[in-house]
């Protein structure tokens, strides 16, 4: 990867127009939404005068273009504005809520990959065998069961009936003290201060929601692994490798899997970005203070700054994710390089 620094930089520069587009579109779209934040926040008992007062306080009495330039000027200083419903700077809200969602999503994806990739490989190798059937059942179940339903069933069985799982009360039970925030990831922050007990407390809270999300994300990853492995295993280079008498293990893992990983990584990227925004229902069921429920609440209240901040944060995250995936491509398949493009 020598000399990749410059092309990577170039890739980042290329994302600037995308982000500008996101800023404009999110600004226009939030204004186009039905619902009037001034009316909403003035409360049910409001009079026309009090609505006008609120409108002026929110700066919504200014012309749209004026509002847009004020928003952009603030944005350039790293200020995403202030959420009316939480009363805090949006940056601060995102900083507390994004890590919660990321931690959950990452745990779920790690879990999901740990199950789905071996399962997909085995299903491809023993095509039509019992493992293949197991894979099919799991995948169908994972796709067809909505996450909130899986979540409720897991709570019902493991918390309600068996009493194994801790109370589904968010990231940390109230008997633990939250560690000082460094990364916002509880698993990391607790280890940074060496608080093993709280670490396990946070990990226990993560288990059920992670499993719920993992079951949901299992399907595309396992299916994609199986399909990619099947096509790799029937490829000429695998036949050649086998004919050359290489050990089955080497053929499978070095020759077939490495080639099959490209589409899997692509799928993984898509699943990740999709799940991060779509795990609202899991967040609701497990009282998880994540970004999804924040966005939905902001949307319901027409909380412009919060919605725009959320969209922008997701866009940045998405851009970064694509970058990481592109880099991963280059690692997996040396033929793909940035300099070649």
């Amino acid at each position, binding site marked *: 990867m020598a000399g990749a620094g410059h092309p990577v930089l170039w890739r980042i520069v290329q994302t600037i127009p995308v982000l500008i587009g996101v800023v404009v579109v999110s600004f226009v779209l939030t204004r186009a*939404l*039905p*619902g*009037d934040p001034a*009316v*909403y*926040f*003035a*409360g*049910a*008992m*409001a*009079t026309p005068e*009090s609505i006008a*007062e*609120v409108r002026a*306080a*929110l700066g919504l009495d200014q012309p749209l273009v004026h509002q847009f330039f004020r928003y952009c000027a603030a944005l350039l200083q790293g200020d995403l504005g202030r959420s*009316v*419903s*939480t*009363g*805090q700077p949006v940056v601060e*809200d995102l900083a*507390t*809520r994004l890590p919660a969602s990321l931690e959950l999503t990452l745990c779920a994806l790690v879990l999901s990959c740990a199950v789905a990739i071996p399962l997909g490989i085995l299903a491809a190798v023993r095509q039509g065998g019992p493992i293949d059937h197991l894979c099919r059942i799991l995948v169908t179940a994972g796709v067809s069961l*909505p996450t*909130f*339903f899986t979540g*409720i069933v897991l*709570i*019902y069985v493991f*918390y*309600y*009936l068996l*009493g194994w799982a801790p*109370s*589904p*009360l*968010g*990231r940390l039970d*109230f008997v633990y003290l*939250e560690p000082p925030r460094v990364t916002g990831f509880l698993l990391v922050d607790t280890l940074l201060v060496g608080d093993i007990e709280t670490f396990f407390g946070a990990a226990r809270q993560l288990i059920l929601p992670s499993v719920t999300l993992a079951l949901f994300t299992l399907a595309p990853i396992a299916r994609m692994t199986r399909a990619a492995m099947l096509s790799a295993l029937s490829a000429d280079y695998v036949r050649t490798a086998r004919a050359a008498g290489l050990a089955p293990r080497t053929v499978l893992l070095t020759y077939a899997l490495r080639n099959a990983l490209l589409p899997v990584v692509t799928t993984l990227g898509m699943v990740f970005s999709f799940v991060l925004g779509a795990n*609202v*229902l899991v*967040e*609701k*069921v*497990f*009282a998880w*203070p994540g970004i999804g*429920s*924040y966005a*939905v*609440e902001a949307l*319901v*209240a*027409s909380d412009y700054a919060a919605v725009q901040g959320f969209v922008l944060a997701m866009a940045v995250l998405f851009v970064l994710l694509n970058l990481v995936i592109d880099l991963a491509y280059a690692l997996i398949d040396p033929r793909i390089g940035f300099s070649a493009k």
Partner: protein
Amino acid sequence: MPSLDRRAFLASAAAGAGVLPFLRFLPAQAQGRDTLVTVFGQTINSLDLHRVGTNRASYQVAINCYDRLVGFGAKQLPSGEMSYDYDTIVPELAESWTISEDGLAITFKLKPNATFWDGRKVTAEDVKWSFDRAVLAGGFPTTQMRAGGFSRPDQFEALDEETFLVKLDYPSKLSLPNLAVPVPFIINSAIARENATEADPWAMEYLHTTPAGSGAYRVTRWDQGQQLVYERNDSWVGGDLPAIRRVIVREVPSAATRRALVERGDVQVSFDIPDRDASELADRLTVHSTPIENCIHALCLNTRFAPFQDPDVRKAIAFAVPYESIFQAAAYGRGAPLWGGDEEIADIAWPRPFPYATDPERAREHLARSGFAEGFDVTLSISLDLVSWMEPTALLIQEALAPLGITVTIDKIPGANWRTVALVDKTLDMHLENFGGWLNTPCYYFFWAYQKDRLFNSSNYASDVVHDLTDRALHMPVDDPGYAPLIKEMFAHAIEDLPRIPLYQPALNVAMNGASGYEFWFHRQLDVRPLTGA
């Protein structure tokens, strides 16, 4: 908005699962405890009620952490439930008060031993500053203050350290009760002033996250979107010292999860649970279902819509509505019926059952007599924020009106838009509405919902007679001999003109497992002060 439907489904999924026997997990009787955990489905978005954008769930901070001059007493309802008592005003920070002969001045004497959390004495100057803030902050607090006749700072005067004077432009029976609602709470003005800026003279920024009061509890921790922790203030003089030292309020959006938590006994109070959970948990846990005072779930008929200008059409609908089915399907029988009442208006109880009941025969007769005997098409609008009761209700009404030839189309309107179209523009022909008044008198309800052009008069009802009657009754003392006749006349018009057809009085449901002492409050928030363990 599929997520709402999913949530509703999710609630019912868990409720369905709830039929299985769980008895072995009913916790052993909890002993006297000093920490309580409560859950609810909403989110607290500010610790300062006066701030623009503060939601209803946050009012509980004003109730539990701040004091007012006066509060309401407690009483036992006929059902055995405990409730606040609108008719008894009790001291909170005020030790005593006197109302002048003409009713235009109320003089309060503050408790001499009342202190803020930082130990500073509560003075009349603090009260003055707090009241000025409430009338000048704009938005909801200002509107609510006006209901009691308080609209300008010059109405409030600190006579000396312990004496506070309120001057009124007109005498009103609503003034004193309106000082006991959550809005006029008393802030430590010294701390607030220190943290005020030129752009923010009322320290909204600071008090948003850091309450500064004298109340029974102080907030020791607030993780927005997750939890709030109350710690008892042992030097509170506003009332009897609460039994519980620490109360943890957790926000759990999913009703199914809340139900599991309270059934397992990991939380002691689940506040504002769905009617369905309440009816299913009632024989396993302590469930309080209190009909919400001065609140009515109603079917509103907009007078702008031509067929609804015909009194026979309105009566036909009132006789066609399947009240009992709605009460069972939408409220699971929780609350109070508001149909099948006596023709004769013998008392001034409100909400009261109207003298209509499901009677398809009479509905047909009325419609045949009207100018729309062949029926008509109409849109019934509901709010997506309130689908849990509005959707089943709307479907049942749709079904019941079909045989009359009235074709109903149901329109679901997003919550953020509802207020504008339903209450401000008042353009919805037929819709469901759920107004409830904080101050518990019929005239207060009529003021908001029956007077011409008022916000909650979403039916565009414009009767000069009712308008005038309401104006005359609004500030008159309830025990004035002239009051009851006025109210009865208002009732007669509301029953005859039917701009709103009452369906039922909804209930506020609370499940308790290991705690007691719950009291119902008109503001529909949890007052943690009277709670006790076990």
